[in-house]
């Protein structure tokens, strides 16, 4: 099991290669889409690099959950419902969802995906 520093260093290297950003830009708090400029297709690239770097398989939807924000059951009036939050907690046990749960606007969802979230996901995955 690698240390947190080792995980962060590899995640940073994956993001630098996939997004063409500088090392210094990849801070734990940086958001992928907001601060690092990632677009949807970059997530595929990032997943390829994480899989290779950590020698793990990342099934579709495991790191970046799909079909929640497009499901009427989980979204009402531009906000994720209590059921949606529960579903997110179930699918993303590695993420800190408390901040988002307090103000669950759909447009804030992307901010959940910080460099730290990816590191937590990898640590969660490697500990299994």
């Amino acid at each position, binding site marked *: 099991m690698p240390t947190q520093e080792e995980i962060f260093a590899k995640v940073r290297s994956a993001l630098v*290669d996939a997004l063409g950003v500088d090392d210094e830009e990849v801070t734990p708090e940086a958001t992928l889409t907001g601060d690092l400029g990632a677009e949807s297709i970059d997530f*595929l690239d990032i997943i*390829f690099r994480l899989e290779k770097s950590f020698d793990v398989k990342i099934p579709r939807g495991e790191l970046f959950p799909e079909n929640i924000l497009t499901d009427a059951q989980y979204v009402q009036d531009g906000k994720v419902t209590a059921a949606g939050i529960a579903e997110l907690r179930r699918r993303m046990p590695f993420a800190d969802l408390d901040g988002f749960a307090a103000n669950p606007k759909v447009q804030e969802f992307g901010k959940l995906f910080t460099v730290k979230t990816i590191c937590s996901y990898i640590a969660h995955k490697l500990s299994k």
Partner: protein
Amino acid sequence: MRWIWIDRFVEFNSRQSARAIKNVSLAEDHLHDHFPGYPVMPNSLITEGLAQTGGLLVGEASNFDEKVILAKIPKAVYHFPAVPGDTLLYTAKIEQLTDTGAMVSATSHVLGRQYPGDTSPSPERLQAEMEIVFAYLRDDQRGRTLFEPKNFVFTMKLLGVFDVGRAADGSKLKEPPGLANLKSTASEGTIGGG
């Protein structure tokens, strides 16, 4: 017309790697404008050729059930220009293959130039190298699908893949059955990657 930027496959190892040849010729109109008096093979078209080499490799890996599209080129380096008379050897290697797409590494080499009487031809030189990300397009819910990947089987035949191809188990790569049935629907199209 078909948008094909490779001439022939010389090696095809299913799910692993492929090599294709592209001959650069002054008979290609575009070289006369790129640039007037100084013809150079555009690197964008070399990129397209590498994407076609890798795209067909990735398409064949799913037996053309998936629609393979070029999603992203995270990195590309061009070392020197290719010129008329050059033979380019394109190599594509599958680094990762998943249920959502593939990561391919690709290189272009200019083969050594040899002239009559030459006893020591110049060595082959690395002309370009890149990473290419292919994604599977899932557009089944749309009213009309963007393209039919099975049509690429014809392009594969045209480019000699079945002459040199090897399946994953090392046996000779077979043409998919039902090629004739597809023929009528494949009058138009481009090839994967572009």
